[in-house]
C-alpha cells in the first residue's frame, strides 16, 4: 500500500521488516531520524531485537561485528564524520566477512563542518570491501535494504553493504512509498543463517592475524566475492521484481539512452532532476539520456560499457572530488575505464558539494560542456569568493 512517508522512516520500516536481531548505531545528522524511529520500534515492541545504545560510531560498527559473528542479523546507520570515525572498523568488518547492512545518509565531510549532502563519505571507502548501493528515491532506498541483506548473507558472498541515500534530499523528504508486508518480506528474505558463528559447542577462532604467507589470499577472496556479487545482485534483484513488481536486476539503469548522443552518468537522488532535464531537452529535440549507477561496488563495468555503446560523449556528474587525481571525480574515473577501448570521451564534472543545489539548467550546461569537449571541471562555483 502506498503511504506518504519521510524517507528516513521508510528506511526504518524496511529495516524492521528485515528483522534485525541486533541494532547498534550512534546519532548523526541526517541519519538521526532512522535510528530514533528504530529505537521507538524497539521500545514499543514493534521490532523484536536488541538495540545497543553505543557511545560512538566506532563502537556501533564494532559491536555489529561481535553480534554478527555470534550469529545475529545486525543493522547500523551513519554518515559523514560518523562513517569516517568508523573507517578502521569498516575495513575490518569486510575483512572478517560479516554481512552487516549499514544505511548511509550521504553527507559531506569536514572541514569546514557541513551537514548537507554529497557523496564523498561513502565513496572514499570504495576499496573497503563493502558493497555500495545508491538509491534515487525513498522507494528505492527502502527496497535496497531487502536486496542488500539477501545478497550480503549468501554464503558465496558474505560481504557487508552500504545502502546509500542522499542526506536531507531523501532522508528528510516525504514521498509516497510502497512498504511491503511482513509476510511478503519473510517470503523474500529468509532468516539469517550464519555460515560460521562463535559457539562454545563448536569452537573457532575469528579475526586471527595472517603473515605474508596468507594475507594476500584473504584480499583475493574478498575481491572474488565482490565479483560474484554482480550475479547475486542480478538474481536477487530479478526475484524482487517478480515478487514486488520493481525490478532491480540491473546494476545500472538507463533512461532515454537509446539513440542518445550524450549520456549523463550519476548516482543517487540527482537522477530524478536529471530525468526531468532530459525530458525537457528531448522535447527541444536534443538526444540526451541518463545512465544511473545503482551499484557502485561491485562496479558494473560491462553493463556500463554496453549501455554507453552508442553515445558520442559522456558527462559524469560527481558529488565527490578525487583530490589530486587527473580525473576530478571517483565515478568518472571508473566510467572512463569501463569505456576505455571504445574511445568515447568521458568528462567528470564536480558539483553539488556540501548540499549546493543542482538545477536543471546546470544539467543542461554539463551536456553543452561535454559536447564542446570541455574537460574535468567544477560547476556552480561562486566565482566572487574564489
Amino acid at each position, binding site marked *: 500500500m502506498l503511504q506518504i512517508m519521510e524517507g528516513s522512516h521508510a528506511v526504518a520500516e524496511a529495516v524492521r521488516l528485515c528483522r534485525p*536481531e*541486533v541494532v*547498534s548505531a550512534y546519532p548523526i545528522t541526517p541519519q538521526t531520524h532512522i535510528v530514533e524511529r528504530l529505537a521507538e520500534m524497539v521500545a514499543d515492541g514493534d521490532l523484536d*531485537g*536488541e538495540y*545497543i*545504545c*553505543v*557511545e*560512538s560510531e*566506532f*563502537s556501533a560498527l*564494532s*559491536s*555489529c*561485528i*561481535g*553480534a*554478527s*559473528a*555470534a*550469529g*545475529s542479523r*545486525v543493522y547500523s546507520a551513519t554518515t559523514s564524520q560518523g562513517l569516517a570515525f568508523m573507517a*578502521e*572498523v569498516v575495513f*575490518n568488518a569486510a575483512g*572478517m566477512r560479516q554481512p552487516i547492512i549499514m544505511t548511509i545518509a550521504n553527507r559531506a565531510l569536514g572541514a569546514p563542518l557541513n551537514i548537507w549532502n554529497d557523496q564523498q563519505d561513502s565513496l572514499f571507502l570504495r576499496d573497503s570491501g563493502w558493497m555500495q548501493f545508491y538509491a534515487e528515491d525513498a522507494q528505492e532506498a527502502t527496497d535496497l535494504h531487502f536486496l542488500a541483506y539477501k545478497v550480503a548473507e549468501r554464503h558465496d558472498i558474505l560481504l557487508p553493504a552500504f545502502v546509500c541515500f542522499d542526506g536531507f534530499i531523501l532522508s528528510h523528504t516525504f514521498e509516497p512509498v510502497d512498504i511491503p508486508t511482513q509476510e511478503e518480506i519473510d517470503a523474500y528474505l529468509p532468516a539469517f543463517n550464519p555460515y560460521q558463528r*562463535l*559457539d*562454545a*559447542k*563448536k*569452537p*573457532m*577462532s*575469528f*579475526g*586471527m*592475524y*595472517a*603473515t605474508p604467507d*596468507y594475507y594476500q589470499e584473504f584480499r583475493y577472496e574478498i575481491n572474488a566475492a565482490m565479483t560474484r556479487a554482480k550475479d547475486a545482485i542480478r538474481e536477487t534483484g530479478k526475484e524482487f521484481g517478480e515478487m514486488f513488481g520493481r525490478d532491480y536486476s540491473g546494476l545500472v539503469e538507463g533512461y532515454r539512452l537509446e539513440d542518445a548522443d550524450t549520456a549523463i552518468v550519476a548516482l543517487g537522488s540527482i537522477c530524478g532532476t536529471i530525468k526531468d532535464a532530459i525530458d525537457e531537452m528531448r522535447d527541444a529535440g536534443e538526444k540526451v539520456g541518463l545512465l544511473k549507477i545503482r551499484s557502485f561496488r561491485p562496479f558494473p563495468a560491462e553493463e556500463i560499457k554496453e549501455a554507453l555503446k552508442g553515445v558520442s560523449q559522456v558527462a559524469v556528474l560527481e558529488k565527490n572530488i578525487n583530490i589530486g587525481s587527473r580525473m576530478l571525480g571517483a565515478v568518472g574515473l571508473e566510467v572512463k575505464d569501463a569505456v576505455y577501448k571504445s574511445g568515447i570521451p568521458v568528462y567528470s564534472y564536480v558539483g553539488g558539494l556540501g548540499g549546493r543545489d543542482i538545477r536543471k539548467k546546470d544539467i543542461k550546461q554539463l551536456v553543452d560542456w561535454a559536447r564542446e569537449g570541455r574537460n574535468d571541471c567544477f560547476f556552480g562555483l561562486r566565482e566572487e569568493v574564489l
Partner: protein
Amino acid sequence: MSCDEKTCEFFEPGHRACGGCGPALAARLITRATGENTIIVASTGCMEVFSTPYPETAWKTPWIHSLFQNAAAVASGVEASIKRQGRDEKVVVIAGDGATFDIGILCISGAFERGHDITYICYDNEAYMNTGIQRSGATPYDASTTTSPAGKYSTGNQRPKKDLPAILAAHGSPYVATTSIATPKDLMDKVTRAINTEGPCYIQVHTPCCTGWGFDGAKTMEIGKMALDCGLWANFEMVDGEIVKSRKVKRVPVEDYLKSQKRFRHLFKPQPNEAEIAKIQAIADRNAEKYGIDIKPKK
C-alpha cells in the same frame, strides 16, 4: 567438547610467545577458570599475535579479535547477540594494557556504562610489547621504554600508572579486582567470581614480560612475586566500588624489585639514584595505605 576440569587446558601449547611470557601464563590460567562455555574477545597485541598465526590457533574455546581498541565493543555485540538467542556462554575479554588503558578506554567506558554482562580482563605487562616496548598509561613511574627512554635528562616514564580499577569501579562495576600470575589460585578464583557476577566486571592481571622488562624468562613468577612483596603491585578486590579485600604482605623495600629488571637499570648506574628510588618507594607506601596490604605486627 567436554573434559575433566583439572587436566583440561583451553589455551594450548605450541604458540609463539617468548619463553617465560607472563601473558601466556595468564591466558592459560584464565581459560582454566572460564572453562569451555566461554567466548573470548581479544585485542591486537602480543597475545593475539603469538596465539593465532593463521591458520593455527592456541584457543580451544571460541575466540574473536577485531582491532586494537574495540574488544569491549565487540564483546558488547557478542553479548547482545547470545542474550537474544537465549544462549548462556560467558563473554570474556582478554586485552593488553595499551588496549585497555589508552586507546580502548572509550569502548570500555561505553560497555561498562551500558552494563553488558561481560568480564573484561586486562593482562598488564605495563607497556606496548607487540610494537616493541613503548610506554602506556600502565607503565610504572621511572620505567625506561622506547618512548620513555631514560637519558641524560630523563629517568624514564614520568607519569604514574593510571588508576583504571578505580575508573571502572566508578562506572558502577559490581566487581573489580587485581591479581597476578604469581598468585595463580587467587587469579583463577577472581576470574571465576567475575564471570559468575552479573554485569560488567574488570580484572587486571599483573603479567611480567621478560622481553620488555629485561629479565631471564625463567624468573617470571619470581618477578611477579617481588612486585607483590614490595607493594608496587597490590592484589585487591572491589565490590560495588568499595575495596573489600587485599592480599597482605610483609613488605620489603622496592630496590631488589627495581634491580631485577633492565627497565629500571638506569636508577642504579653509575650509582643508585636515591631521590628517584625514594619516589618509587613512596608509590609503594601509598599503595600499602590505600589497599591495606601491610601485615600489622601482632601486639
